[in-house]
């Protein structure tokens, strides 16, 4: 593999990792602060993509679509919070898992009933439809670079919010000991709602940004949800820093593993078998990484709770 190809793969891995981070950030905050397992977080990502695609089609502009999708995703998240999730904060994890799974079923089927089963598309913005030539014959789409940049900016903002503001301090305090925070007179309910809405918006943002490169279809959030869970568990639940690092690890392992595994296998097996086993192994790779990390650090890389 040449150096340029490796560079491209690293870029791809980072970009995928950033997308994962946007989804995982909300998940880890909601989980860390509220001790609430929200399986429906992946659906927020799907809703974001559908909102983006629909609003872009209605307004005729990618930017309006993206801009309007953010508050729409926020409102949708808050609506779910009020209708369903808030009734489950006091319940055990199992009840939360079951209830949020119910939400997944409804919303996956719901978007199908509303938008039809066929995949939808969101057009690329005119200004970013070109690409940067990074190797002979291959354009690296400007839009992907934009995702990378937007994700990094968001991650920076998030870090600032959580580490440097009073609100962030409360969130961190909530993540390590919520009952104590409540005893100190903080309105935990309101804090919860804000964190929740914010998390939903981040996932929706990720979905709307991914919509122009991925197919917008029912159930598109399900597999990403699993990866996002892998990310927050590797990173340590409740830790933004951990989620960021873990998202990049998962993104890179997934992308680079996929392109190198078959070559690696070719050292032991004949080419055809190597390609198939390599592909199967590449799919397993992140799970192997997660199992290995958990076997040695059962609370993840950056455990928050003591």
């Amino acid at each position: 593999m040449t150096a340029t190809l490796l560079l491209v793969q690293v870029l791809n891995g980072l970009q995928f990792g950033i997308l994962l981070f946007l989804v995982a950030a909300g998940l880890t905050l909601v989980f860390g602060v509220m001790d609430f397992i929200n399986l429906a977080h992946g659906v927020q990502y799907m809703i974001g993509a559908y909102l983006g695609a629909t609003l872009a089609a209605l307004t005729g502009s990618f930017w309006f679509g993206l801009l309007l999708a953010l508050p729409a995703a926020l409102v949708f998240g808050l609506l779910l919070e009020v209708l369903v999730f808030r009734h489950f904060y006091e319940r055990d994890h199992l009840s939360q898992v079951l209830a949020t799974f119910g939400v997944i079923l409804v919303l996956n089927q719901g978007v199908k009933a509303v938008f039809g089963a066929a995949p939808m598309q969101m057009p690329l913005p005119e200004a970013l439809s070109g690409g940067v030539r990074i190797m002979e014959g291959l354009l690296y789409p400007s839009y992907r670079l934009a995702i990378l940049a937007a994700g990094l900016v968001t991650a920076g903002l998030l870090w600032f919010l959580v580490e440097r503001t009073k609100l962030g301090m409360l969130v961190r305090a909530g993540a390590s000991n919520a009952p104590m925070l409540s005893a100190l007179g903080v309105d935990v309910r309101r804090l919860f709602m804000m964190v929740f809405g914010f998390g939903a918006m981040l996932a929706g943002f990720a979905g709307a940004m991914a919509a122009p490169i991925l197919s917008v279809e029912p159930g598109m959030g399900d597999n990403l949800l699993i990866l996002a869970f892998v990310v927050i568990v590797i990173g340590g639940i409740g830790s933004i820093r951990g989620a960021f690092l873990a998202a990049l690890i998962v993104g890179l392992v997934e992308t680079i593993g996929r392109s190198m595994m078959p070559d690696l296998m070719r050292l032991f097996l004949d080419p055809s078998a190597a390609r198939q086993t390599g592909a199967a192994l590449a799919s397993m790779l992140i799970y192997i990484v997660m199992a290995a990390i958990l076997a040695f650090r059962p609370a993840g890389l950056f455990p928050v709770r003591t």
Partner: protein
Amino acid sequence: MTWRDAALPAGVFAALALAPFLGFGQSHSLTLLARAMIFAMAAISLMLLVGGAGLVSLGHAAMMGVGAYAVVVLDHARITEAWAVLPAGVGATALFALATGAIAIRTSGVHFIMITLAFGQMAFFTASSLALFGGDDGYTLYGRTEIFGARLLEDRLAFHFACLFCLVAAWALVRALLASRFGRVLRAARENETRVRALGLEPYPYRLAAYVIAGAIGGLAGVLLANATEFVAPAYLAWQRSGDLLFMVILGGLAGPHGALLGALAFVLVEEWLATLTEHWRLIFGPLLILCVLFLRGGIAGLLGRG
């Protein structure tokens, strides 16, 4: 344990035993009931982990899958005798559970959920890459498992009672385990691990044993599932299936193995029924789940136990 805890499941078993003679004797009803009983068996074994040891596994479908693929491997070698298939299915699953459990049990809480998911996914991708057994397309069995050369299980009624027998046995075993000293240690370790350690007991081997036993029962359910559909595919190992099993357990209630039994039967039958009503049945099933969790705190078993 009150008399209700025994009366309720006894009633269910009696109903299942009589069902073929009370108008549910057509083979499609029996197919559906067999499917429900097989999932009930898997749910009961998962109940041992969730309700007994507090270990929430999101990889239990892999246990059924390993059992089912054991049948496939033997079928491919034209071995369909029960004396070979049953021990192979149960043994292979127990070994798989031992190997994965040894690592998984080092973690707890949500980390345990995720690490079992990870092993489940590894098993899923492995099954998908087995080109010899159809890969992702799955494998059609040559025939159902035979008992000393007799093709007994081809008869739907015989298969119905074979499933019922295994189900009762699984229920009795899990119930006895939970009531024994073994079960008390598991529960005590779930409630307060430090205290159990202070008593000089190491929870790890108990949990591992529970994981292996649950795996083995799951494997048996897998062997039966393979026989019921005469077809095995990697879809049997998908994480969504593990999720379904978990929901059956929670839906039924965690008070005892009969909860998982009721949860599984309700889940399979309601799902089947709703699907015949409308294409958008999930729009009904989802809220139903949410309402169940919201209002049936003790699960279905809790509801029936009160009445």
